[in-house]
């Protein structure tokens, strides 16, 4: 433990800043993402992330500034609009959850790219390469960015801690929650909004596709190890945190290794390990136990539904 502390103290400044920022996001994304994965909404975050592009473009158009804070506020607003649309589509049409998510994701992304292309061809200063906002720039996080990421992460986790009972109810049995007189629809919206906030704020730290991985993989890992919610939240948070730290440190060991993708690869390593060796659900465990005797339910793991897209998207 002391060795670790000493090792961390000797890390270069930029590594420390990036590690702090990404670790905060990793931890909070794991905790909040747990509800997304349980609710089979793994891709809500992805939709929110891609919806930011519209807001980012509008923010630049209105203010003329390419400041991270300005762009983030714009992105957050448009992500919220997208989330509300998502909920409305589900409520007032017969479109299912996954289809509604896909619609919001692709439409908002298309709108964003159209806006940015239009701005570029009209020569609006600062609009060149704006779509790369979605790719993130992990290695160049500054202390201010890390502080922002940390604050939002803490607030996000606090929200979950305070509203644990409500969140659990809505995540597992929204119909029962509604029948019992809970404002289920509002709570659901709040939960989705939390995921969206987390993803949007995590964008500079990892990029759209990778931050989705941070919201999905740690809960999927945690699901392998436990059947209960609170341990799952803790494990997911820990896995997110460790993936972030491990990825950042690993990528700082060799030149020309992009940081964000390595974080996701470390998380994936946790996932593979868990799929293999986790008690009860792990493959090794299952092959060891006599077939037919163990009555462990194996079919409905969230893992299958939540296999993340870990490839870097080419824009």
């Amino acid at each position, binding site marked *: 433990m002391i060795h670790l502390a000493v090792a961390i103290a000797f890390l270069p400044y930029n590594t420390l800043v990036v590690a702090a920022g990404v670790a905060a996001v990793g931890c909070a994304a794991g905790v909040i993402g747990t509800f997304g994965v349980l609710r089979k909404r793994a891709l809500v975050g992805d939709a929110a992330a891609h919806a930011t592009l519209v807001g980012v473009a509008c923010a630049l158009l209105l203010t003329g500034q390419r400041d991270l804070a300005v762009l983030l506020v714009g992105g957050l607003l448009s992500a919220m609009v997208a989330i509300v649309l998502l909920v409305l589509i589900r409520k007032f049409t017969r479109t299912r959850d996954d289809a509604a998510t896909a619609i919001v994701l692709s439409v908002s992304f298309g709108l964003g790219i159209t806006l940015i*292309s239009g701005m570029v061809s009209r020569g609006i200063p600062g609009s*060149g390469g704006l779509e790369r906002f979605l790719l993130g720039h992990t290695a160049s996080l500054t202390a201010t960015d890390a502080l922002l990421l940390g604050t939002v992460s803490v607030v996000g986790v606090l929200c979950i801690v305070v509203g644990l009972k409500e969140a659990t109810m809505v995540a597992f049995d929204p119909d029962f929650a509604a029948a019992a007189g809970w404002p289920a629809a509002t709570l659901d919206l709040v939960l989705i909004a939390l995921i969206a906030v987390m993803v949007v704020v995590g964008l500079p730290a990892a990029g759209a596709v990778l931050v989705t991985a941070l919201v999905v993989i740690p809960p999927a890992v945690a699901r392998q190890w436990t059947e209960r919610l609170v341990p799952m939240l803790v494990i997911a948070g820990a896995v997110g945190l460790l993936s972030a730290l491990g990825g950042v440190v690993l990528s700082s060991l060799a030149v020309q290794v992009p940081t964000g993708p390595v974080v996701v690869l470390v998380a994936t390593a946790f996932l593979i390990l868990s799929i293999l060796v986790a008690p009860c659900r792990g493959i090794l465990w299952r092959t060891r136990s006599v077939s037919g005797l163990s009555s462990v339910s194996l079919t409905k793991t969230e893992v299958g539904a939540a296999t993340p897209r870990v490839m870097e998207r080419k824009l």
Partner: protein
Amino acid sequence: MPRIVNVVLVLSLVGAAWNNSKAASPVRVIATTTVVADLVEQVGGDLVAVESLMADGVDPHSYRATPRDIDRLIRADLIVANGLHLEGKLAELLERIGRKRPFVAVGNAVPKDELLSIGNDLFDPHIWFDAKLWSYCPSTVADALSQLDSKAALHYRQRAEKYSKDLLELDKNVRRKFKKIPQQRRVLITAHDAFRYFGRAYGLEVIGVQGTSTESEAGLADMNQLVELVVQREIPAVFVETSVSDRNVTALIEGAAARGHSVRLGGRLYSDALGPAGGGGDTLEGALLSNVDTIIGALRATSTSQRIVE
């Protein structure tokens, strides 16, 4: 009989006027970047109407064509590109349209052995801030324009020759300016490697945070290495570019500050695009001189202040 002569005379006059008015309508040229547009304008003068596909302050590595762009390209009399894969996402489109429309990539005019290789038969495309390399390019533009407008061939050739001479003069001028900076201070750190030819020509060591194209992402180890270098060599200033995000450079400054070395933002350099029309940086000559003054100002200001401290 005299009447017929008159008629013929009038007709021939009308014909001459018709010819003249045809010659007066300018050759419509589309250039890919503002840098290339400037080159065409210098060579063509009033006889061409040149437009740049990408506006000023736009990053050519990531620029994608819109349908309107394709329309503009198809309608142009001549398309002029930088080539050497500068227009990364446009290359394929340019090649396709280039088979049907007159097309010239000025980068091909530079002798291969003077280009900097970046591996795999690819070359660094940022040739324009080495005025001597760029002076190879006007003649190809003149040739292409002459084929379309053969009557003005002499005009184009003379202008191209004059512009090449101006560029060589500029080259000498810039060399002289850099002599004032001591050799060990001549380090140029910018967001991406757009200044390697510039550095080679004028004796600056050039280090880019991001690599030759803006499409690659800097890793954390690259960032740490760069901070180390800035601190070790006491580099006084780093620079950002007008068409590239300055986040990497900001992180670099912060990292160096944490090590107790204050490195300043030396200023904004023109790299892949020129400045807005009417500003000092709207021609290559203006932009190059502006860069040189920014760099010399930043690198020299600190050296005098350090001398005072000493």
